[in-house]
């Protein structure tokens, strides 16, 4: 009898889940941070007939954030203290087609993140992430049309870190019971040459410093010689 009940429940669930199966389409599967990168608009679409409550979350890979306090004082730099906030999403945007509806998983993420933002440094990081449009903790709306096609859009700002990102869509019954979910991932990375330069700067800072100094001297030398050539022509030096 138990087995029969289990089989029936599975069949029921499968049919329901299949009825609400969704496939997310992303306008970008990979975002390359190259010299032309400023901001990148990404659109996620999915079809969902008869769906009641839909939430979506765009999550950036968890990162450790280090805050180095420095005084902005004309041309002067004075580094003072550093503070680390570990393991928080590098990007977090929430969406919902029902005003103020936030799913339990997202509530959990928000609670965890807000807990880490509870210090004064944390509050500064929170402001920074919101200001740079890396975080949007109030759910934005999910647009839909008559064909049950849903659409949400977000912008990847130039301050977004590289790594894996995911778009999570969750469906709920009108009473808030979870029905089904789907996930689609995309990546933000620096292009080959840029990536190599960043790795070089991080792994061999001394060599990088010497290289940048030599480059500066060569460029300065070329510029200086060009100036001399012009001086010679105009003033006969």
């Amino acid at each position: 009898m138990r087995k029969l009940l289990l089989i029936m429940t599975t069949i029921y669930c499968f049919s329901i889940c299949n009825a609400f199966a969704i496939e997310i389409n992303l306008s970008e599967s990979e975002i390359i941070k190259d010299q032309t990168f400023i901001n990148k608009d990404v659109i996620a679409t999915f079809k969902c007939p008869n769906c009641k409550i839909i939430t979506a979350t765009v999550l950036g890979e968890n990162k450790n954030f280090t805050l180095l306090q420095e005084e902005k004082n004309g041309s002067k730099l004075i580094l003072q203290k550093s503070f680390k906030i570990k393991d928080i999403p590098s990007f977090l945007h929430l969406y919902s087609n029902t005003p103020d509806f936030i799913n339990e998983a997202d509530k959990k993420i928000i609670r965890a993140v807000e807990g880490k933002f509870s210090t004064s440094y944390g509050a500064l990081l929170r402001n920074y992430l919101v200001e740079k449009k890396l975080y949007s903790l109030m759910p934005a709306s999910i647009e839909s049309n008559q064909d049950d096609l849903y659409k949400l859009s977000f912008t990847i700002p130039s301050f977004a870190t590289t790594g894996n990102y995911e778009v999570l869509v969750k469906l709920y019954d009108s009473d808030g019971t979870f029905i089904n979910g789907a996930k689609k991932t995309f990546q933000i990375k620096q292009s080959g040459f840029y990536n190599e330069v960043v790795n070089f700067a991080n792994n061999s800072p001394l060599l990088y410093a010497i290289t940048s100094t030599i480059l500066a001297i060569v460029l300065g030398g070329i510029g200086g010689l060009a100036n001399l050539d012009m001086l010679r022509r105009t003033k006969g030096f």
Partner: protein
Amino acid sequence: MFDFFSVYFPIADISVNVFGLILVGILTGTVSAIFGLGGGFIMIPYLTAVGLPISTAISTSVNQMTAGTFASFLSFARLKRIDYKMSMFLILGGVAGSILGYFILHYLESHGLAGGTLKVVFTFLLISVSISAAYDSIKIIINKRNGKHNVLKSACKLCQYLPLKTEFSSSSHHISPIIISLIGMVGGILVILLGIGGGFIMVPLLLYGLRVNEKFLSGTIQLQIFFTSIISTIIHSVSFNKSDIFLAFYLILGTIIGARLGSNLSTKFKSDDFRIGLALFLIIIAIIMAKNTFFPSDVNFIIKAE
């Protein structure tokens, strides 16, 4: 519209308008070549305003300084307006000052004194130098009105008692290399502590303190800043933050154009014009610095994701 000219820079990790970078490079290069200043005091506020963390702005600015001062040095060398002997003592002092500055910064940071102490000391130093420059300029203007000739006398009475007095081509009287090395040392310390070439402290000290001929001043100091900026680039890159080599490229491009304009303009300046222009510049910088020190605007943070 302006986004079209924006370029993403991988180390700074932001997009910046390249026209703005070239323009600020031209301005910095021109001012640097005329007055013998490093130009960090123009460059760094601009770079931080466009969103760069201050430490990246400083190391990138110092990197640009290397190119700019080298370009200026070549022009001044051709114009025969460098006192190499004086430069050598300034460089020796500058190298010692850079190393000393590195230890001072670490000491101040470890004792949590870096911010306030440096800010106040530096501002007072700048205010006193600009007052001296303003006084000198007022004298020039009054003498001009009265038809008198402006004669420079050494303002540093103590310097006359220092040993090892040597003849310098840029000065009509003998100067002790000790005081020149000490001035170079101040520049070296400043380049590490504040990321600025120290030109706007060294120029007035040499001009008003030791009465060095202004024709030689810019070229001689540019050569010193060139060496200290190399050391500073390396120290900053290894200890604090990396310069953005790509961003520095656009700044250097503008600086080279500016250096050409500046070295050309500087040949047209008369001695008195130079001193009045420098005084005006120093007063403006001193007002800005004093405002930032005593009425701080905001606190900036470098945020790094790992």
